[in-house]
């Protein structure tokens, strides 16, 4: 336990050092920071939005935002987790104001897959349909549901990212999950995807 705590403390100290160097204008440290965070930032954006569409712009926005917020980093959490939270906020802004809003407002395309494609295709199609349901929800709900169900975030983190209170987050997540399952009951492929993906509850 003590070893684990000292490792965590060492990681945080290393993160704080990197953040400090990047903040002082050290270009090498800034590159190092970007590379250290790129996986967690990309994973969060992908899990919230369900694909790599507009991903390059979103990654750029996330990193610019990370550098902007760097003076506020207090090393009380891992730099990766902190960066991922910023990325989730960028994804939320994208859903609210970015091109994704136009995509969401467009009517859903007619589904032509009467027979689902086999193997990995089922997974891919199921995931596409899952995110299609999320995109029809309010951006805060979309992000909250993706962060909890896909990214495994806690209610507290989701509440902090979306700016909703914990009670409100809990209440709205409950409603959103019900809506999601209602959709899955009408869509066998989505149901199959959600069941296989481990969302059966």
């Amino acid at each position, binding site marked *: 336990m003590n070893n684990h705590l000292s490792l965590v403390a060492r990681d945080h100290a290393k993160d704080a050092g990197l953040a400090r160097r990047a903040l002082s204008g050290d*270009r090498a440290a800034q590159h190092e920071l*970007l590379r250290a965070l790129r996986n967690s930032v990309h994973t969060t954006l*992908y899990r919230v939005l369900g694909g790599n569409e507009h991903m390059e712009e979103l990654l750029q926005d996330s990193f610019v935002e990370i550098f902007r917020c760097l003076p506020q980093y207090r090393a009380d959490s891992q730099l990766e987790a902190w960066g991922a939270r910023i990325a989730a906020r960028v994804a939320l802004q994208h859903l609210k104001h970015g091109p994704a809003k136009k995509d969401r407002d467009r009517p859903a395309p007619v589904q032509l897959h009467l027979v689902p494609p086999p193997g990995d295709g089922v997974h891919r199609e199921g*995931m596409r349909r899952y995110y299609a349901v999320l995109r029809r929800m309010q951006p805060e709900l979309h992000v909250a549901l993706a962060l909890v169900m896909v990214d495994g975030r806690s209610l507290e983190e989701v509440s902090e990212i979306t700016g909703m209170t914990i009670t409100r987050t809990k209440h709205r997540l409950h409603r959103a999950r019900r809506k999601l399952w209602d959709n899955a009951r009408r869509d066998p492929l989505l149901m199959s995807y959600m069941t296989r993906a481990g969302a059966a509850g």
Partner: protein
Amino acid sequence: MSAERFTVAPEPLSRQAWERVESRVFERLGRGEHLPSGSIVVRGPAPVRVWLGAAGLVLVGTVVLWWGLDRLHHHPPAQANVAPLSLAPSADLSHGLGAAPSSQAATPFAPGAGARMITAAAPARIVLGGAEVTLAAHSDVLVSSSADGAFELELVAGEVECQSMAPLGRASFVVHAGPNRVRFTGAHARISRSEGGATVSVIEGWVRVQSGARDLELGPGQRWAPL
């Protein structure tokens, strides 16, 4: 919640895509996009709805002001039946109050000072620190203050209605009615005295009544009359 968790592995981006992202991020950092905006902020025109909202507020404000002034002009506020009265230090009011009680400038009540108030056919209102006391007609009270700043009022005859607004931690207000002691810490209650004894009726808040060895608390709507 944790049982409902998907496993979605992101499709990796190509090396070229990462290189593009990295170079563009540093281009943007070079332009200072990450820096907090300076003190000079150029704002565009406020949206129409902001102006409409402001105009609406001004209109409502004007109407309310006009209505208030008109009402004041045509219907001056009715004189209260009970005029406020503030006690002067060691005021001697034993001569009694007439039908139209006089009003004096508020003066702090000096600790230890005492005053007797007798109302005639009209009630009177006095303000004692954070408490407001209304004396019913034909009432007789002795007002004093203890060294710790609490006001004490002895009800000799008649009825008083006390509203103590003292916040917590401030000196309380005490009414004596014969052997009964009624302590206020932010309450509204009526105490009446007659030859048969005294009655305490609580309107709001809580009061503590001490009568001989008995000590009880009364809440809103409760009434107590010691034997």
